[in-house]
């Protein structure tokens, strides 16, 4: 549905290098990477808001030379960018070629805000504003929807809930989505496939499962939450304190999360996280030995 070949963007210096990425019809692909890695620039290139080289095509139609407003590409921004001089209904209907109150009402119902038509946008909460922004982006039925850290400005609880809701809406309607985020939980929750972007290059494009189990390099491994020791990636539950452990770890922190303790520490400058039970929990500052264990046995 959306295909990018050798896309490059330069401002004063190159920001994106030779991006090749394919997003299938109805697929949700999430670009994951640190801030300043060129994620938003890639979306802006697809939307036609920055100049790029290489080719971008939607539904087989090349977008070369097509201005932003004729691309049939929708976009949701980090801060909702609702037009402050228009009410909710006018915002949602902004992208429609003619006034269509029925469609506006339908879109608002879709995002759980039925009856909000005549509210002023500055009276909406952060979560409501993002829902209106979603309704506005979906109303013109874009071929591809771009999400630029759409939940970045929301608090954690609201974000977790809204990510699920939005994902449900997008799946139900079969929308093709390219999203960007720096939050791996958000990426794993929403996406069919995750594309890891590092310094303007795509490092690995795969399902969450594949990234976790077969990361192509240490960078991807660390990004998805694995600990890298002697060139091998370990999930938290495969490491444990043992007296004869191969690695000496200095404990830097302990967290109780989701029913278990997580211990974080440093081995030769490398950050490591592993699970622990309450009895063998080490103190911060202590040096312990850890090794791989088979979680099944």
């Amino acid at each position, binding site marked *: 549905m959306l295909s990018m070949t050798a896309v490059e963007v330069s401002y004063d210096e190159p920001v994106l290098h030779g991006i090749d990425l394919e997003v299938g019809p109805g697929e949700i692909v999430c670009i994951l990477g640190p801030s300043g890695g060129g994620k938003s620039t890639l979306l802006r290139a697809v939307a036609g808001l920055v100049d790029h080289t290489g080719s971008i095509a939607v539904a087989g139609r090349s977008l070369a030379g097509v*201005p932003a407003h*004729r691309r049939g590409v929708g976009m949701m921004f980090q801060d909702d960018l609702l037009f402050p001089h228009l009410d909710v209904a006018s915002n949602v209907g902004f992208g429609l070629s003619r006034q269509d109150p029925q469609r506006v009402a339908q879109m608002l119902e879709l995002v759980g805000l039925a009856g909000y038509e005549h509210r002023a946008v500055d009276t909406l909460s952060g979560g409501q504003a993002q829902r209106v922004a979603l309704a506005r982006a979906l109303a013109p039925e874009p071929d591809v929807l771009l999400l630029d850290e759409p939940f970045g400005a929301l608090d954690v609880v609201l974000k977790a809930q809204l990510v699920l809701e939005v994902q449900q809406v997008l799946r139900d309607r079969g929308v093709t989505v390219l999203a960007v985020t720096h939050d791996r939980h958000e990426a794993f929750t929403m996406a069919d496939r995750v594309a890891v972007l590092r310094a303007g290059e795509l490092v690995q494009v795969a399902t969450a499962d594949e990234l976790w189990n077969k990361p192509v390099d240490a960078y991807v491994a660390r990004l998805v939450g694995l600990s890298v020791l002697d060139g091998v990636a370990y999930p938290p539950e495969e490491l444990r304190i043992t007296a004869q452990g191969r690695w000496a770890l200095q404990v830097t922190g302990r967290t109780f999360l989701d029913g278990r303790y997580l211990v974080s520490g440093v081995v030769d400058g490398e950050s490591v996280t592993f699970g622990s039970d309450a009895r063998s929990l080490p103190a911060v500052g202590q040096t312990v030995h850890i090794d791989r264990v088979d979680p099944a046995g």
Partner: protein
Amino acid sequence: MLVVPVVFLLVMFVVPVAAVFRVGLETGPSQMLEVMGAGRTWQILGFTVLQAVLSTAATMLVALPAAFVLATFRFPGRGLIRALVLVPFVMPTVVVAAAFLALIGPTGALGVDLSGSVWGLVLAHMFLNIAVVIRVVGSVLATMDPRLEEAARVLGASRWTAWRRVTWPLLRPALRASALIVFLFCFTSFGVVQVLGAGQLRTLEVEIYRQTAYLLDLPAAAALSLLQLLAVVAMLAVVGNSGGARTGNAVDVARAPVGWRQRGGVAAVVVLTVVVVLAPLAIIVVRSLMIDGRLTTVGWQMLFSQGDSTNAVDPFSAVLASLRTAGGATLLAMLVGGMAAFGLAFRGRGGWLRSVDALMPLGTSAVTVGLGMLLAFGRPPLDLRNTGLLIVLAQALVAIPFVVRVLAPALSGFDRRYLDAAAVLGRSPVRALAGVAVPLLLPAVVVAAGFAFAVTIGEFGATVFLASPADPTLPVAISRLLARPGEVTVAAAYAASAVLMLITAAVVVGMDRVRLSRAVAF
């Protein structure tokens, strides 16, 4: 984008000012030096500084409590009062001077004659400038996050220490900036001193006019202009024209007053502010309807007796002349000032751009500009005096700083990603501008135009040089009527003042309807 405003400023400001000095130098450089060295000149400079200092102090004294109350407390009628305190600022100086003449003049309503004394000037200047302090300081106070002071408190600072180390430093730039602006306005004030001074009070600005218009001593006028210009530049260089920084969130942090002390304080400040603002305006209407203590409409009848040959001033055509020139000048100021604001907002603010800003100080001497324009473009080979164009150009020049100061922050504050959002929703660039940028920027444009119109229709210092004797603008006509004997003429002068006041007030009310509170001037 900046080329047009820069050229305009060069031609309309630098060339006229240069013409003043050229004429001075041609007729007698030694005479110029003599004037500058004379004890009389330094006396005048001393008085100019003195009255400006006193006026600034009085303005701060009255405006700061009002700024504090309006920014801190929420109470019924707050929006109305915020709009009301802006009214004096846009009132024409001649109208204000006439009002204070009616209050504290020889036959003043308050029974004390302060005309010809420095205290009359101080009161009128205070009235004119309270809005500057209330707006500049108020905008900082209103956006001051109370959590900053709370943060200081939990870090162990006492209430006083928190105020001294957090609130005060945040407030200081705004206080300094507003005091500087008020001082400059008072330093170069013309209409008020000319009308209220009763010929006895001489500031530099008034003396420049007197030397030119009555004594025809151009070298002396040029010397005084140069002195004044140097003084203004020196002040700007020493104090710096830094605006008050906003402290962050645009959230209104006002709260309801608690307890009888706060409520009483709020009520007292509100009542005092309303009286200070409304009394001078009300007295104008009263005086226009009073002759020898009796109610009469003779003054108004004279105002509208069009074409009365015995009447050297035809107030009705003065209204038309005023509307015509102010309309043209506003249009011109919006065009040139708009381009300047656009250039300043979208090109960063480095190096020589700053000097464009500095070239348009609000404290420019209007009399020098008027005199200069007359000398540069008012005699052969280029005589534009009878075209009416000179007044339009001079008034536009005076209005441009106001336009820039309203439009530039609005333009640089406009989030251009709104245009991106419109584009991805299928709006072409033109339709995105029309549907998003225009409505979002319209309030600032209307406010800028309103300010420009109010400033130009009340402009006196430059216009008085350039208005043709037969076809004066309203402020010029009012000053002439006030200077002539006869109770009826004086009543007519107040009637004309009332008309000018109503036109200006209508503009302010119109501005307020587009949410004046969103655009912060100066």
